[in-house]
C-alpha cells in the first residue's frame, strides 16, 4: 500500500500536548480563557472527537461543497427569486442573513478560542477546522445576499445588522457573545457546539431549507443545507469535553452551562425562526410548524444526546414545553407591531386560511392571539393604520434583550414581569428562567444596558421613536420594516367577511 490509512497516523496529529517549563501551565492556559475548571492538561488528552477529519480531506471535501453551492447560485441567478417570490419569503432571506452572517463570522473567534486555549489537543485541531467552517459560513452568507443589495436597501443589513444597536441586533449579539465570543474555550465547546449547534442550527438550516425548497428558492435551500453539513461535524466538539468534565466530577458545572445555553438559544430562535416558519413562509409552502420542528430537532434528538452523555434534562423542561405553544406567537405580534424598528418586512400571516392553519397547529390560537389580530385587522379595514404602529418602546427583558410577552386572551392572560432590584436599579425578566440565567453570572450581565435602559438614561436622542430608530441604525425610510404585503391580506379578510354575511 502506497498511502497509509488515516487511522494509522491520525493520533499523532493530536499528540501535541507537552509539559511547559519556561512558563507555567496556567500562563499557557489562563483559566479565564481555557475554562478547564482546574482539570490538568493530561486529563484532557483522552478527548476523542467522534467526527475525524484531516487537512487534506478537509480542503478536498470543502472545495467540492463550495463548487456545488456556488454553481447552483450561478445557475439560478436568472431565476429572479427576489422579484418572483412571495414577499413573505423575501423577508425570511433578509431576516436570516442579517441575523446570521456576521454571527457566523464571530463564531470564527469562538472556534479560535478553543483552538488556542482548549487543553484537549483533539479539540484544538477540530476547532481549527471549525474556524475554517465559520469563515466559510460568514463569507458565503455575505456573498449570496450581496447581489440583492440593488433590489432593496434592507439587504444591506446582511452586513450591517451586527454593527448596529437595533434591538434585534443587541439581542442576537447578547446571546452569541454569551456563548461564542465572550466565553472561555470549554464554555464555548459546551454552550456553542453542544448547547446550540447540536440542536438549534438544525432548526434554522434544515427546517428552513425544507421550506425554501418548497418555495422554489433552491439557491438558499442548497446553501443552508450545505452549511449544516459543516455544523453537524463541528457541533461534535462539545460531547467529549462534557465527558471529561463529568468524569472529573464537574457534572454540575457542565449541566449549568448546558441549561443556560439551551434556554438562551430557545429565546432567540422563538423570535427568529418561529415567525419565519409559522407566519412569513407562504402557507402553501409550509411543511411542519415551528412547534413540530422543535419537537423533532430539539425535544427528541437533543434530549437523547443529553441523556446519552449522563446529563439531565434542564430543570425548566416543563416550562420550555409549554412555551413551544405560545412564546413565538407573542413575539410575532410584537415584531409585526414594532415593524419600523427592524430590517425585514414581517408578513402578518393572518388571512382566514392562515388563521385556520394556526388554529389547527396550535389549538386555541384564535382565542388567544387571534383576538389581538382582530383589533389590528379592524383598524386596517377602517383605514386607521396609525393605530397599528408603535409610539413607544416595548418593555424588554434584561436577560434576553427581547420584548417581554405573555399569552393574551381572557382565559389565558398570564403576563407577569419578574424583577430584581439591586443597587437602586430595577431589572426586568421575561420569566423565572431568564431571571435564573441572569442570577448565575451577575458580573457578566448586570452592568449591561438594555435598549430601554439606554433610552431612560438619555443615551438616545431625541427621546422619541424617531430618535430611537436612528440610534438603532436606520438611516432612511427604505430600511424601516413594513407589512410584507402592504396590507394586501386585508382584502382576503374582507372577501371572507362578505362571504360570511
Amino acid at each position, binding site marked *: *500500500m502506497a*498511502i*497509509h490509512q488515516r487511522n*494509522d*497516523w491520525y493520533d*499523532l*496529529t493530536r*499528540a501535541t500536548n*507537552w*509539559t511547559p*517549563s519556561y*512558563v507555567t501551565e496556567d*500562563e*499557557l492556559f489562563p483559566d479565564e*480563557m481555557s475554562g478547564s475548571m482546574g482539570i490538568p492538561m493530561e486529563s484532557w488528552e483522552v478527548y476523542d472527537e467522534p467526527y475525524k477529519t*484531516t487537512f*487534506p480531506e478537509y*480542503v*478536498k471535501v*470543502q472545495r467540492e461543497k*463550495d463548487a456545488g453551492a456556488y454553481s447552483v447560485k450561478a445557475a439560478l441567478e436568472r431565476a429572479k427569486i427576489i422579484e418572483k417570490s412571495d414577499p413573505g419569503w423575501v423577508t425570511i432571506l433578509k431576516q436570516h442573513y442579517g441575523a446570521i452572517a456576521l454571527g457566523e*463570522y*464571530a463564531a*470564527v*473567534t469562538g472556534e*479560535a*478560542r478553543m*483552538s*488556542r486555549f482548549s487543553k484537549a*489537543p483533539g479539540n*484544538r*485541531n477540530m*476547532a*481549527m477546522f471549525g*474556524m*475554517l467552517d465559520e*469563515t*466559510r459560513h*460568514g463569507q458565503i452568507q455575505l456573498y449570496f445576499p*450581496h447581489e440583492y*443589495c*440593488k433590489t432593496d436597501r434592507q*439587504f*444591506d443589513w446582511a*452586513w*450591517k445588522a451586527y454593527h448596529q444597536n437595533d434591538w434585534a441586533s*443587541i439581542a442576537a*449579539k*447578547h446571546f452569541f457573545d454569551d456563548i461564542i*465570543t465572550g466565553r472561555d474555550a470549554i464554555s464555548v465547546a459546551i454552550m456553542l457546539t453542544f448547547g446550540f449547534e447540536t440542536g438549534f442550527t438544525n432548526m434554522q438550516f434544515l427546517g428552513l431549507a425544507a421550506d425554501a425548497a418548497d418555495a422554489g428558492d433552491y439557491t438558499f435551500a442548497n446553501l443552508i443545507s450545505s452549511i449544516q453539513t459543516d455544523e453537524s461535524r463541528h457541533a461534535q466538539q462539545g460531547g467529549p469535553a462534557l465527558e471529561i468534565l463529568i468524569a472529573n466530577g464537574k457534572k454540575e458545572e457542565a449541566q449549568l452551562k448546558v441549561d443556560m445555553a439551551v434556554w438562551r438559544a430557545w429565546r432567540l430562535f422563538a423570535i427568529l425562526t418561529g415567525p419565519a416558519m409559522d407566519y412569513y413562509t407562504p402557507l402553501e409552502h409550509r411543511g411542519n410548524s415551528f412547534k413540530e420542528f422543535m419537537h423533532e430537532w430539539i425535544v427528541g434528538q437533543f434530549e437523547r444526546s443529553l441523556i446519552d452523555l449522563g446529563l439531565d434534562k434542564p430543570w425548566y423542561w416543563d416550562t420550555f414545553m409549554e412555551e413551544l405553544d405560545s412564546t413565538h406567537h407573542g413575539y410575532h405580534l410584537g415584531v409585526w407591531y414594532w415593524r419600523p424598528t427592524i430590517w425585514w418586512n414581517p408578513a402578518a400571516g393572518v388571512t382566514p386560511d392562515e388563521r385556520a392553519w394556526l388554529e389547527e397547529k396550535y389549538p386555541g390560537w384564535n382565542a388567544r392571539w387571534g383576538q389581538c389580530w382582530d383589533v389590528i385587522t379592524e383598524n386596517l379595514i377602517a383605514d386607521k393604520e396609525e393605530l397599528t404602529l408603535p409610539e413607544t418602546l416595548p418593555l424588554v427583558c434584561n436577560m434576553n434583550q427581547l420584548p417581554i410577552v405573555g399569552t393574551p386572551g381572557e382565559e389565558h392572560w398570564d403576563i407577569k414581569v419578574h424583577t430584581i432590584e439591586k443597587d437602586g436599579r430595577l431589572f426586568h425578566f421575561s420569566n423565572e428562567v431568564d431571571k435564573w440565567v441572569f442570577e448565575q453570572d451577575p*458580573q*457578566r*450581565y448586570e452592568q*449591561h444596558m438594555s435598549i430601554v435602559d439606554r433610552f431612560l438614561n438619555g443615551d438616545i436622542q431625541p427621546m422619541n421613536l*424617531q430618535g430611537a430608530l436612528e440610534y438603532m441604525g*436606520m*438611516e*432612511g*425610510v*427604505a430600511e424601516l420594516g413594513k407589512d410584507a404585503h402592504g396590507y394586501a391580506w386585508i382584502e382576503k379578510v374582507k372577501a371572507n367577511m362578505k362571504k360570511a354575511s
Partner: protein
Amino acid sequence: MAFDLEQKPLRTWSHLAKNRRKPSEYDIVSKNLHYSMNNADAPWEQAPNSPMNMWYKKYRNETPLKHEDWDVFSDPDKLVYRTYNLLQDGQENHVQSLFDQFNEREHDKMLEADWVLALAQLYTPLRYVFHALQMSSTYVMQMAPASTISNCATFQAADLLRCVTHTAYRTFELSTTYPDMGFGVAERGVWEDAAHFQPMRELIEKQLASYDWSEAVVSLCYVVLPMLAEGVLKPLSEASRQGNDTLMPMLIDSQLHDSQRHQRWATELHKVLLADNESNEAVVQQIVDKWVPLADAAMDAYISAIPNSPVSANDAIAAAEKVRRDITGAA
C-alpha cells in the same frame, strides 16, 4: 446624518458604496466584519467589566500598535475561503502524490542510517513546533482589530495544521520502516528535554504566553515564523539531500509556499502600520529586539545538532534578519 426619506438601494454594502471601484468578492466577504471594534467600552455585548471585555480592552484596545482605521488592511493574496481550499487542495494533491510515489519506490529504506537518527531528533518532534505556531496564529486571529487581518491569521493557522499533518504522516511512515527508532513515541521527550530544542521551546512557550496583541502578532510574524522558515525548514531541507532523503526537500518546498504567503501579509501589515502612525515603527522595533535573541539562540541550538549542516547557524540568523528587512522594507 439626516434621516433619508428618499433612500435608494445600493449596489453594494453601505460601507463599500463610497468606493469608486466595483467591490471584489474579497472586499464583499472580508472587510469590516469585527463588530467588537465598535464600542471601546464593551467590545462584546456584555457588561463592560465582564472578564472577556476586560481581556479585549487590555490586550487589544490598549495595545501599543495604533491605527485610525484597521479595516484598510487587505490581504495581498486576496484569499477568501473558497480560494484557500482550491489552493491547498492543489498543494495537498501534490504532496499526497509525493507520499504515494516515494513509498512505492521504497524511499525510506534508502535513507542513510545517520539521517534516520537525525530525523528522529530533528524532524518528527517538529509537530510540537508547528502545532504551537498554529495555536499562536489562532490567538492572533481572535484578537486582531480587523477581520481582514484575522482572516490571514486563520489561513496561517490552517497552514500550520497542514504541517502538523505532514509530520504526523511521515512519523508513522518512518516508524513502519524503522520500528525501533522511537518514531511516534519519543518525540515528546525530545521536544521537552533534548538540548537542541530547549531554546526553541523557551521562545515558543514565552511567545504563546504573550497576550498583548501587538506583541503576539509582531513576535510571531516578524520573528518566530522567519525562524521556522530560515532556521528550521531550509536547513533541514538542505541537510536531507546528504542523507539520500529526496522527499524532504520537495515536501518542505510545498510548505515554504505557505511561508512566503505569511511573509507577504506581514509585509502588507507593516506598510499599513507605518502609513498611519509613525510611532508604530518604534513599537515594532522594540518587540522585535526583545524576541530576536531568543529566536537566534533557538536557530543556533537547532542547527548545531544537524549533522554536517550545509547551512550554518549564522547563515540562518542572517537569512531570518533578511526576511525581517523585507517585511519592514528596510534597506
